[in-house]
């Protein structure tokens, strides 16, 4: 039987802030985005703020209404990255199978490194070490698969270890609401509820063919998860997952009102995406854009390039035409995301196009690499297309160097 831990840093951002500011430690604290930049939501809160009903994702004004004395501090991502790294260094003392899940969570497979100890014993040791060495707390789930280990880390917090064994999972896991299970989001949960499936136990005992007819392949996965049959391995730490897409998104400091505004923001995003493509040695075959309007309604559209590319202007033109084809300006636009995918290495030979000036494309590529060099040395603003100067407030966003941390998927 495997021995798998899932370690979850309790209210990570808020804990790191509280550690560094002893004066606010016993007050309700939240880490919030910058309302000036319209990122004014709660990113994390400490348990005291949680007691007032402050929730992650709430607007700052809503949170202040719930909790008038709330102390809101701006995020300090480099500091959180440092603490995430320090925690990982501790995990790596126990196994090389450490699979991070975001900044604040990680799975550890310690089956082969128990050397006479139990998983629980080592989990307790890790919990104590994180507290002593980093000054923050973790809750750790110990189980025989990744899904139950994750449930265990949510079972009791903060600063706790929960063990879910083969002999106890029916008693501990099955009464929990189905929504607690990894990958049961609000819409899946609603769908399950409409079939009378409310708990993980009911999910586990539902006929497989019903789940399959409801959710397809995903239904089988849920059935496996609920029955403790998840056998997915914990990845080795040096097995960095291969990059499947590169993207950035930005919420504009003001609403975008017409195509020109959108083009400026798209050009900023394309610049960042293009630079990251070239930096990592990729070319992409497809691009998708994600539009969110002022009413927070959002949708995505994607398109394919005629050939693999890492040229900023090609990415920009394709995404701009995609936008124009799909947006009728019923509402102003609030935020835009851009992703390129279907990646290949930039040294892979590609078919030249007879109807395109390939020499010019090659020159463009060289030009952009030269520009990248300048931007890396002197900052993103050193070279800009003149079109970005129309609205400096919009074009001052620097998606490449602002620390935008995206959640990762499980699969």
């Amino acid at each position: 039987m495997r021995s798998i831990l899932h370690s979850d840093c309790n209210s990570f951002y808020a804990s790191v802030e509280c550690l560094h500011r002893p004066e606010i430690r016993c007050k309700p604290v939240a880490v919030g985005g910058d309302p000036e930049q319209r990122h004014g939501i709660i990113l994390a809160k400490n348990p005291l703020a949680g007691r007032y009903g402050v929730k992650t994702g709430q607007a700052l004004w809503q949170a202040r209404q719930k909790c008038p004395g709330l102390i809101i501090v701006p995020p300090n991502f480099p500091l959180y990255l440092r603490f995430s790294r320090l925690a990982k260094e501790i995990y790596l003392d126990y196994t090389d199978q450490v699979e991070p899940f975001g900044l604040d969570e990680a799975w550890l497979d310690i089956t082969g490194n128990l050397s006479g100890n139990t998983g629980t014993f080592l989990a307790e040791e890790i919990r104590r070490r994180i507290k002593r060495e980093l000054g923050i707390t973790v809750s750790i789930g110990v189980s025989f698969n990744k899904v139950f280990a994750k449930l265990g880390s949510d079972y009791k917090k903060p600063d706790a270890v929960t063990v879910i064994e083969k002999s106890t999972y029916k008693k501990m896991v099955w009464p929990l609401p189905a929504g607690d299970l990894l990958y049961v989001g609000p819409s899946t949960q609603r769908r399950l509820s409409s079939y009378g499936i409310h708990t993980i136990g009911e999910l586990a005992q539902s006929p497989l063919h019903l789940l399959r007819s409801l959710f397809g392949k995903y239904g089988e996965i849920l059935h496996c998860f609920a029955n403790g049959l998840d056998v997915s391995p914990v990845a080795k730490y040096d097995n960095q997952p291969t990059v499947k897409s590169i993207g950035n998104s930005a919420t504009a400091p003001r609403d975008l009102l017409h195509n020109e505004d959108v083009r400026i923001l798209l050009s900023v995003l394309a610049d960042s995406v293009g630079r990251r493509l070239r930096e990592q040695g990729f070319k992409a075959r497809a691009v998708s854009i994600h539009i969110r309007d002022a009413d927070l309604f959002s949708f995505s559209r994607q398109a394919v390039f005629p050939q693999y590319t890492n040229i900023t202007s090609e990415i920009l033109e394709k995404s701009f035409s995609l936008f124009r084809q799909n947006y009728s300006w019923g509402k102003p636009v609030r935020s835009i995301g851009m992703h390129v995918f279907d990646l290949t290495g930039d040294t892979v030979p590609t078919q030249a196009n007879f109807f395109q000036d390939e020499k010019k494309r090659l020159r463009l590529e060289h030009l952009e690499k030269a520009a990248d060099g300048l931007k890396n040395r002197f900052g993103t603003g050193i070279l800009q297309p003149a079109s970005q100067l129309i609205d400096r407030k919009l074009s001052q966003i620097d998606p490449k160097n602002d620390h935008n941390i995206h959640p990762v998927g499980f699969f």
Partner: protein
Amino acid sequence: MSCKKYVDVTARFTAEGTVLPLEIHWEDGRKYPIDRILDIRPAASLKAGGAGIRYTCRIEGRSKYLYLEENKWFVEAKEQ
């Protein structure tokens, strides 16, 4: 109330890669030689608010904590 105070430190970098603090320079110009390092371990300072490598040092006969936080040194000072 105790607080975090970054300080100048004279240190010795050994051939093995260990960093050993030798002397703390206080802001008023006083220098405090470290008589002996009693313990080195990663630790958080709840008093000062920070985490790093904690050196337990004997200075003028008393044991004091000195923290190396990435590339800065701090101590738990008495007041601001």
